[in-house]
Each structure stands twice: as structure tokens, then as C-alpha cells.
């Protein structure tokens, strides 16, 4: 295809991505190093019958002028990155000095919003991702052994947790685990503790969110692995069997290696998607016990005063996190591309 033709074909799509992904990225980056101007104050001496008083008022004119002449705001460099709401450099240093054990240090850190989000996000990503893969694999193996007429029906129901809007799915489960809901009541009965509430404690909230995450993502892993199972090399399976491999050994040495590329694929997609965990935190009203980066960004922008600089800074830090997670994929794609040439 000629360059010219390619250009015109690709233009609409490219323009959309340039205007609404690339430019906003630059804008987010810029906003993260500027803060809005503070109001210009002026001191006026007011003299009345009871003597003179100095009053400080906002100089509207000068403020407007400053804002017009420099619409980006005041350049502050890395200041927002280092403040308490983000990397909290001073607070971390202080915690390091004042605490004498590692666990006390981490306890101090978890009071800072950025680190508390970091810890929840990482725990979520690195528990949900492997457990999703295991659950997906188990479902795929089980469904694959069903009678062929049943398979379609089972796949239909299996897709639901994934297809249904994350917010809707988490609300549905949230109502069920409510202490008056059906699962909540059942848990109270099983544990014998009538005051048990999954919403009340941090560990239980985290477990709830993680279970939701697996419930939501397992169908995806299942479908991908199930498709992989349809291309299993039958002769290898049979020869393993002739050699006396047990069922478990066949799963371990033939099926799992065959599915390995798919496992990598699911793991990468899951890493990306779990890192942006957001909807369940709103759906489960778990803000008090679990925050993620996406939630911090949302929270900054959602209030009456939109803290755009703060949200932008967290956005940039989040993007850096994604970049770190994504580097292995990019390297692999690059190697594949080179290999093809």
C-alpha cells in the first residue's frame, strides 16, 4: 500500500487517538508540574472613626491578570509529586527515622494515601491474577469433559460474571454480602457470630474485593483455556497414557505446557486490568478500607473542588506503574517482530 493511501485510510482513527489519548497524556503530564495560582492578596489600610486598621483582601484584578497571563498555573516542578498526597517524601523519611522496626515503618506508610493505594493495588493484582488463572484452568478442564450438549449452556452462564458491567456485578454481590443479605446471613450462621459484617474490617473487605475480582475475571481465563483445550495434541496425550501417565501427570506434563502461551497471555491482560481496579471499590463502598490508584484519581476529580493537579500527578504515577508492568510484553512483541523479519 502506498504511503499516501495508507495515510488517508489511517487518518480518522489516528486523529481520534492523537486528540483524545496522546494530547490528554501531555496535558496530564503538564498539569502534574503546575498548580493553580493562589489569589493575589493586597493589604489596604482602612481608616475610620476608631482609628486605622490593616485589612487583607483578594486583589481580584491582579489575580485575574495573573491567571490570564499564565493559564497553566504556577510551575512547581516535582513538588506535587513529593507532597503528602503522593510520594510523601518528607513523611517517608520521617517514618524511616522515627520507627525502629520494619513492620512499624510499613504501618506508618499505610497511613499515607499513595502507599495505602499501592499496597492494596499490588495485593489485588498479585492475588487475583494467579488465582484467576487457576480457577479458569479448573473450570476449563471440567467443562471440557462434559457432554457436548451441556457445554453451550454452561458456557452461557459462565460468561455472565465477566460480561455484566463491573459496577452492576459488584453491586449485586454487595447486596448479597450485606449483613441482611443472603450470603451475609449465611456467613453469620456458619461462623456463629451474629454481628459478623464483611464491610467492617479491612482484611475482610480486601478478601471480598479479591473474591469479586476472581469471580469477574475467571470466565475470561476459562474461555481462553477452553479454546486452547480444543487444539490439544491427541497423539501426545495417548502416548503419555500408553507410557502409564496418570490423569494428574497428563494434566501436568502435557496439557499445562500446551496451554502455557495462553497462560502468559491471560496473565498479561489480567495484570493490566487488575492494576486499574476501580469499580468494585465504589460498588462495594469499600473506600474506607481499600483504595486503589484509579480510585484516588476519581476521588480527586469528583469533589466540589476538582483537584486536577493532584489527580494528574497520581495519573502520571499510575501510568509509570503500568509501564513497569508492561515492559516484558513490549520486549516480547519486539522480539517476535524481529523474529518474523
Amino acid at each position, binding site marked *: 500500500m502506498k504511503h499516501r493511501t495508507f495515510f488517508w485510510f489511517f487518518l480518522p482513527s489516528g486523529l481520534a487517538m492523537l486528540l483524545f*489519548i496522546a494530547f*490528554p497524556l501531555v496535558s496530564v503530564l503538564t498539569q502534574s508540574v503546575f498548580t493553580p495560582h493562589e489569589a493575589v492578596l493586597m493589604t489596604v489600610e482602612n481608616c475610620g472613626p476608631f482609628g486605622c486598621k490593616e485589612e487583607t483582601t483578594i486583589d481580584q484584578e491582579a489575580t485575574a491578570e495573573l491567571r490570564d497571563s499564565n493559564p497553566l498555573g504556577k510551575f512547581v516542578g516535582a513538588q506535587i509529586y513529593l507532597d503528602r498526597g503522593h510520594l510523601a517524601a518528607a513523611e517517608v523519611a520521617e517514618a524511616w527515622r522515627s520507627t525502629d522496626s520494619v513492620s512499624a515503618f510499613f504501618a506508618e506508610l499505610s497511613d499515607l494515601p499513595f502507599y495505602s493505594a499501592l499496597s492494596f493495588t499490588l495485593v489485588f493484582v498479585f492475588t487475583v491474577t494467579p488465582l484467576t488463572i487457576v480457577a479458569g484452568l479448573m473450570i476449563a478442564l*471440567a467443562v471440557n469433559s462434559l457432554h457436548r450438549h451441556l457445554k453451550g449452556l454452561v458456557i*452461557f452462564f459462565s460468561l455472565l460474571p465477566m460480561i455484566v458491567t463491573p459496577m452492576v456485578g459488584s453491586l449485586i454481590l454487595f*447486596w*448479597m454480602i450485606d449483613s441482611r443479605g443472603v450470603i451475609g446471613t449465611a456467613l453469620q450462621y456458619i461462623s456463629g457470630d451474629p454481628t459478623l459484617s464483611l464491610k467492617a474490617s479491612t482484611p475482610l473487605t480486601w478478601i471480598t474485593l479479591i473474591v469479586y475480582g476472581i469471580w469477574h475475571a475467571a470466565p*475470561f481465563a476459562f474461555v481462553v483455556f477452553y479454546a486452547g483445550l480444543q487444539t490439544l495434541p491427541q497423539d501426545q496425550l495417548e502416548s503419555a497414557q500408553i507410557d502409564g501417565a496418570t490423569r494428574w501427570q497428563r494434566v501436568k506434563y502435557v496439557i499445562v505446557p500446551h496451554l502455557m502461551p495462553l497462560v502468559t497471555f491471560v496473565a498479561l491482560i489480567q495484570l493490566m486490568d487488575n492494576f486499574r481496579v476501580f469499580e468494585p471499590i465504589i460498588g462495594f463502598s469499600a473506600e474506607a478500607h481499600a483504595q486503589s490508584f484509579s480510585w484516588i484519581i476519581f476521588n480527586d476529580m469528583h469533589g466540589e473542588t476538582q483537584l486536577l493537579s493532584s489527580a494528574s500527578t497520581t*495519573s502520571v504515577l*499510575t501510568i509509570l506503574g503500568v509501564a513497569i508492568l508492561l515492559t516484558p510484553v513490549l520486549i516480547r512483541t519486539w522480539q517476535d517482530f524481529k523474529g518474523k523479519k
Partner: protein
Amino acid sequence: MSDTVATRRSLGLRLTVNGFVIFWLILAAFPFLWTFWGSFKIELDFFSISDWTNALTGALTQEAHGSSFTGAGYEGAWIQEEFWKAGINTTLVCIFVVITSLTLGTLGGYALSRSGYRYTFWLLITALIFRALPPITLVAGYLLPFFEWNLWGHLATTVIVLVALNQPFTLWMLHSFFQSIPKELDESAKVDGCTQFQAFRHVIIPVMWPGVITTGLFSFLLAYNDFAITSMLLSKENQTMIPKIVSFMGTTQTEGNVMFAVAAVVSATAPLFVLVMFFQRQIVSGLTAGAVKG
């Protein structure tokens, strides 16, 4: 798997496997059935303190409404709280997002699949990076210009933003789909004197529908399921269903309001049910397309 003597399973294993499948089915489907059933009850039944079987039998609903089923939640959500407006907004957003992203995506994806130059690789990699960005990280970049130019709050703005955010995925899907259509088809049309666009129009468009429908389904799901973008970019009167449901949750103090949210949630799930019923095969093939092709 074939049912030869060698692969026949022992009774114990069969029971375990079937038991596990049933367990998973309950896990996957029960929440939806339960909430659907409960949406026709009053709050005191759905969240029953005294006796959990009330949620099944609707004892208190019977007392309040004279029947163990009531449409009060639906009436409250759709009429009183004007959920129908959100429904219309969601419909509009979804239709336009799907049409626009497919139009842009087919043109772009086709070009990417037919050009052998190095920049196609870099464009695809850029798209992959864009796909990995959490959409909410871009919202801070939208707000100022949108306020400045009075674009904030309109459905059209949100549609364009969702289309753009959806482009990377659409391009990847359609790129790999067009690669599976033999190049000889449009090459021969070009030999016969067609321009590239004529070849695309007369030769490729008639055969591209399976791939386009699959991609369209995922564009639809993205637009339909979105909360982060729609809740930040739409004004209150233009809200789509999902942000609207969340705003119900903010006002749950008075009795009955929770049931509005439950009814709204069930209403929002229904179209997805139908979608999976009719397009199960396409959804499955779309999910695996990325995996199989790498």
C-alpha cells in the same frame, strides 16, 4: 475428548468434575437469579433481618402490596427517578460509539493489515500502549479544555472520547482479522483497475462482517459498561445508566430507594443477558482471537 476405553473416567472422578461444574454454575449464575427474584420484593424482604426465607416467599411484600411480587421498585426507578432518560442516553451512546469506532477501525485496521512498512509496527505498538493505559488517568487531561470550550457534559463529547479510547483495541482486532483475508482478493481487484478504496469497498466490505460484528460487540460492551469516563464527563441530565445507578446509591436513606437501585441494576443487566444469548459464539471467538494470534 473421544470416549474410548482409555479415557473413560472413574465414577469418583466424574462425580468430582460434575460437582465442580455445578458449584461454578451456582457461583456464576445464582447472584443474578437471586437479585432478579428479589427485585420484585420490598426492601424488608430483600434485606430480611428476621427470616431469610422472606426473600424467597415475599411475606412482607404480600402484606404491603397484596401479592408476593411487586413492580414498585421498577416503577420507582423508571418513572419516579426517570431511569428511562438514562436508558435513552445509554442507547444513544452505545449506537454512536459502535458505529463510529467500527467505521474508523475498519479503515485503520485494513490499512495496517495491507501495508508492509515498518511504521505499521510502531503504530500497533503505540496502540497497545494506549490500550494498557487506565482510561481514568486521561480524564484530568480532558476536563480543562472541555470546560473551556463548553464541550463538557454533552453526549457527543463522551461518544467521541469513548470511540478514541476504544480505537486501540478495535485496531488490533480488525488488523488481525483483515490479515486472515487473503491479500490476493484486493490485489486482483486492483489489477483490474480499482483504486485501493474501491477494492476495499467492493471486495473487502462484503466479506468482513464476521470480524466486524465480533469487534462491534466488544465496542458495545465498552460503551455500555463504562463508569469512569461517563461519570466524569456527563452532566446530571445526560447521565447514562451506570452512573445513574451509582447516584441512586448515594440517596439510599429513605426506604424503598435501595429497591430502585436493585430494579435499575436488573434492568441494566437484561440487555447483556440477551446479548450473550444471541452472540455467545462471537464473544467466545473474540476473546480467544487475541490469545491464539498472539
